[in-house]
């Protein structure tokens, strides 16, 4: 009889161990990074770089042109800044609360330093 009781306790103990293992496994799964969001970040960063590089190549120094180019490439809300002038760009898309921004400084053909900053919400 004692032998049987011991057997039941062993089985119960094994189940408890399996249960704990599965719980730990679930916690590990939930802490893994969200690759969808990471990929979105990579894509947005590369598009901002595109806008900055093209702005330097074309020597863009006015907000109107930069905004026009921004709208061709992005549907997200964001802003463009040239030197101290800033222009907010709104969009219909919602749930954008995180920001990625990049800036560049270049010297144009008239030897003037131009600072451009672009920010995109996602």
């Amino acid at each position, binding site marked *: 009889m004692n032998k049987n009781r011991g057997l039941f306790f062993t089985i119960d103990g094994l*189940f408890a161990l399996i249960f704990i293992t*599965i719980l730990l496994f*679930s916690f590990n799964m939930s802490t893994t990074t969200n690759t969808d969001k990471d990929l979105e970040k990579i894509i947005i960063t590369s*598009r901002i770089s*595109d806008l900055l*590089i093209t702005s330097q190549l*074309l020597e863009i120094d006015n907000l109107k042109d930069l905004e026009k180019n921004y709208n*061709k490439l992005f549907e997200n809300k964001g802003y463009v800044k040239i030197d101290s002038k800033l222009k907010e760009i709104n969009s219909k898309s919602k749930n954008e609360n995180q920001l990625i921004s990049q800036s560049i400084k270049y010297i144009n053909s008239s030897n003037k330093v131009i600072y451009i900053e672009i920010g995109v919400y996602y």
Partner: protein
Amino acid sequence: MTLVLRSSKAQVMILDILILLIICILLINIEFQEIYNYKTKIENDTKDIKLLEKEMVVEQLITDCKYLATLNKTTNLCSKNKIEIKNLTQITNNFQKICLLKIDSKEVIKNTQNKIIINIIKRAVVNNNDFKIIEVGFCE
């Protein structure tokens, strides 16, 4: 007296087996859910990796002089994001999944017959001293 004792022992055993069964069902359910979630996660990750691979292909197109990028004659380096329409056959030969290439809505490569476009990747470039958007379509 012995009958009552045996009956209570049987009840305890049945209760134990029942609890064991419930735990078993619960564990199997959790395991199935976890496996399903893991499978979905792997599928999503694979999709993301494939998209990233396509992003890299487009990056190569606009940075490599072997494809669309322009060679800066003074520095002898490839200018990133400054492109000219060239080496189109090389592009279609080396990247067979590319079936569409548009520069500012003008189709440069179009090979979409009996094919479904899965992804279109948009990038900003300079072509003929003008800001343009290139769209690269990938088909299966």
